[in-house]
């Protein structure tokens, strides 16, 4: 491991970071644009005497992860959009069973099979989940290849620290992009899992990791407990970035790799005399509702810029709660919104124009 920067593709950066984080098992099934993660790890894990399984399906893969992490080891799978849809059942179980699953979603276009154009259409799928029941997942959204490394490290740590599934929500642009990144050492302490991990009932009571509670009171309490845990996660782990926020009249808000272009658009707007700032949630779940609410109360308007039909937009509106104006600048998939398109969109909404879709 080195602190020197290397030029590396996002997918490979995630894979190597998983190795550095001590991921003992990778289970996966190919799908573009994340296949390089499995390809890289197939060789690397064997070389290191760790486990790599070409699963029969994404259903198989995520359930293998659940089995592996139940024994206290770090394990992960990676996939993309329509195939992550297949894993939603397991994520609901993993949240209920408090299993530290790590799932990387390198988003492509949907709905349905869609295509391999980059997109950010899985915000709702990740943040609100496609599984049944009341559960919450921790969702981290990297915006650079360096953050692919840093947030993969954080994903493994948070998963075990809180015994909660974590999704690293990247996208095809980031997965396929080469950028300089340094790996350093895995920066987090090892979490003690000995109090719950399954290792065989040697010298202790047998352990069951279970969500079945054929007892109404226990079931109610279990759901309350899961939500109390997530309140602690929200308190401790909510992270975001801000740029030029103090004097900003309009706050460009984006997640993941769209963050890159709003920073550039902010500079262009500033050069034109428009007081623009940037806000970028790093954790999409827990979402920084409180901070957005504070900024709205100071009268700052928001322009949410995303590659979907307004998924994070709704969370920002919810946080703003009518205290200021929130507009959407978006495209559902394909070529990332350019700096020029974002600037034009912001100018238009600031003049009270139609906010919807910068390319219309």
């Amino acid at each position, binding site marked *: 491991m080195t602190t020197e920067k290397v030029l590396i593709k996002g997918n490979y950066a995630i894979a190597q970071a998983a190795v550095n984080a001590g991921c*003992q*098992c990778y*289970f996966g099934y190919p799908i573009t644009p994340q296949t390089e993660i499995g390809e890289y790890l197939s060789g690397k894990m064997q070389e290191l005497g760790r*486990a790599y*399984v070409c*699963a*029969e*399906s994404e*259903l*198989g*893969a995520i*359930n*293998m*992860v*659940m*089995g*592996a*992490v*139940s*024994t206290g*080891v770090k*394990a992960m799978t990676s996939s993309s959009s329509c195939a992550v849809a297949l894993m939603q*059942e*397991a994520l609901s*179980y993993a949240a209920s*069973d408090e*299993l530290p699953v790590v799932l990387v979603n390198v988003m492509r276009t949907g709905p349905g099979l869609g295509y391999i154009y980059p997109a950010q259409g899985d915000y709702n799928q990740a943040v609100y989940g496609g599984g049944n029941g009341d559960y919450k997942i921790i969702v981290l959204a990297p915006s650079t290849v360096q953050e692919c490394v840093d947030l993969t490290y954080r994903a493994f740590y948070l998963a075990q620290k809180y015994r909660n599934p974590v999704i690293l929500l990247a996208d095809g642009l980031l997965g396929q992009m080469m950028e300089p990144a340094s790996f350093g050492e895995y920066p987090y302490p090892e979490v003690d899992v000995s109090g719950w991990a*399954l*290792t*065989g*009932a*040697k*010298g202790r009571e*047998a*352990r*069951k*990791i*279970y*969500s*079945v509670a054929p007892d109404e009171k226990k079931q109610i309490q279990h759901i309350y407990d899961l939500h109390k845990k997530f309140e602690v996660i929200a308190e401790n782990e909510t992270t975001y970035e801000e740029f030029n926020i103090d004097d900003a009249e309009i706050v460009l808000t984006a997640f993941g790799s769209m963050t890159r272009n709003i920073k550039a658009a902010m500079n262009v707007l500033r050069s034109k005399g428009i007081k623009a700032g940037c806000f970028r949630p790093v954790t999409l779940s827990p979402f920084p509702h409180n901070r957005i609410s504070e900024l709205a109360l100071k009268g700052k308007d928001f322009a949410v810029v995303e590659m979907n039909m307004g998924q994070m937009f709704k969370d920002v509106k919810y946080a703003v709660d009518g205290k200021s104006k929130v507009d959407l600048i978006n495209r559902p998939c394909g070529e990332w919104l350019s700096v020029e398109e974002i600037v034009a969109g912001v100018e238009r909404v600031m003049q009270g124009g139609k906010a919807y879709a910068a390319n219309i």
Partner: protein
Amino acid sequence: MQQIFSKPKSMKKDFRYTFCPGCDHGIAIRLIGEVIDELGVREEIISSTSVGCSVFLYDFLDIDAVEAPHGRALASATGVKRARPDKVVFTYSGDGDFASIGLAESMHTALRGENITAFCINNTTYGMTGGQLGPTTLMGQKTTTSPTGRNKDYYGYPIKIAEHIALCDGTAFSARVSLDTVANINKAKQAIKKAFQVQLEGKGFGFVEILSSCPTNWHMTPEEAHERVRNEMMPVFPLGVFKEI
């Protein structure tokens, strides 16, 4: 006084089976408990659970277990075994869990030759939900979702699980047993032991399909139900060892 009969040590101390009267799950679970005792592996076991009546095994065996969604027991078990190759890993499913919703996971686990032991209770119906047509429902059998009986044009055919698993190159042992008589119960125990032993020896996937009665959903007395196992199930699902290496 010499104690000549007791519960297996790997079973919980105080429990009463919650299965319907005459159900064979209790016998199967006890046999697994006895074999775990005889092999001395209770403290090394991590099991992945199923969904259906089979999931109650975990109320009676005193072992570590992790929940898997319906049909995913073998995928979960694969994860456990790859993470902890030194542990003894087994699953216990019904025919619906193992061979309908979980067929892909089950068969691919056999094809990969995972050192895992799997048991499948075949009672030709979905027992927990009240007796619907399942992957092993016999031709002509009436269930709540085949009210006029299973016919090929409407419902297709039942699967012969143990024979299919035996065809997988990664399978080290595949057998079908029954619990209808004392003699067959003894043979079943031998097969259960063998299915664990191939795992312990690192030979590959060990599998036993266990023909079982479901008097409640078959609307029969326990005695009639065992007669049905003999007269109707065994001609379609013959007992025997289909693969042993």
